């Protein structure tokens, strides 16, 4: 009789245990967003030469790029609206090339750097044609 009672109790426990939904594992925490940092360097009129401040900024960007595994660097040159659009397109590309050269000189792999020139497209500050403005004479460096 006692054995029967134990057996019934054991079955009851087993059934009760089966009835409980399995505990859900805690979902994995969401992945951290892809790290992305960006910088801007500015140029003198009609120049693709990095001044000391710009060189310092590029050096900082290079340091970050080297510290990130498998980082890619996107370098985009821009100009103000002074000069012809065709000339400015070439100038913006020269600016981007100058920044890439400085990044590579600082130890960033050349293959990791993509450059482009936008010329007068993408003005930071909208201006009429033939307007000199430093904030538009820039290169944007994105590291991610």
């Amino acid at each position, binding site marked *: 009789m006692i054995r029967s009672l134990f057996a019934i109790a054991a079955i009851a426990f087993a059934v009760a245990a089966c009835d409980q939904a399995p505990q859900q594992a*805690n979902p994995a*925490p*969401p992945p*951290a967003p892809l790290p992305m*940092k*960006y*910088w*801007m*360097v500015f140029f003198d009129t009609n120049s693709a030469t990095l001044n000391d*401040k*710009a060189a*310092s*900024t590029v050096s*900082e960007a290079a340091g970050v790029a080297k510290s990130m595994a498998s980082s890619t660097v996107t370098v985009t040159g821009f100009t103000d609206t002074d000069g012809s659009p065709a000339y400015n397109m070439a100038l913006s590309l020269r600016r981007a090339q100058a920044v890439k050269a400085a990044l590579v000189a600082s130890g960033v792999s050349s293959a990791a750097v993509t450059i482009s020139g936008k010329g007068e497209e993408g003005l*930071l*500050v909208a201006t009429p044609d033939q307007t000199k*403005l430093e*904030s538009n004479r820039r290169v944007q460096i994105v590291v991610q």
Partner: protein
Amino acid sequence: MVNSNRRQILKFAGASAIAATALVGASLPVAAQQGKPVVGLRYQNFKRGTIHSLDPATRGLVIVWEDLGRVKLKAADLVINYAPGGTKETTGLAAGLRVGQVVDVQWYDYIDFLIARTTPEVSAKARAMVASGARAEGLPDSEQQIRLMEQSGMVVKTDLTLYTIDIVNPASGEVLQTPQIRTEEGLAALRTLKPGDPVTTVFSIQTAIKITVIR
């Protein structure tokens, strides 16, 4: 079930705290004008998460919320059980916090205190605000400081959907995005800004004021 009950309790606790301090809050704007900036109670959050990391040197911690995302916080002095790995004897009320613990957190998000075109007066005001810090509304007898930070430079982009500003730091050339602007005054200022403008901003940093260990 247990979790949802606790959430209810937290909600009620939050509502009670707000109700209990509503009368106190009535005098705070004057105090704010005369002294430290005040982080308003309406910006207080209650949430459950898991401690991802601790930085005792800065009283920092990273919490991964149960629902989504993670947040980096500073523990105000009010968080008396912060001491990582401490014991009830060393921390007073409860054992110190440890990585992996599930905790209920009472905290303040970033709050904007100043969004303005840069002038010498605005820069001086920002410096004074950062030096003084802010205090939490609802703690009238407390000088528990919530740290403030300044971000200044040239506006690169304004986002009227996310309510943020991308600012290029004039010293480093790095472009940083501000936290979300939340106050009416800040949003009004945001709408007047455009790329190229010099801007000065002051935000409070994300701050925990109470952390309760659940398990």
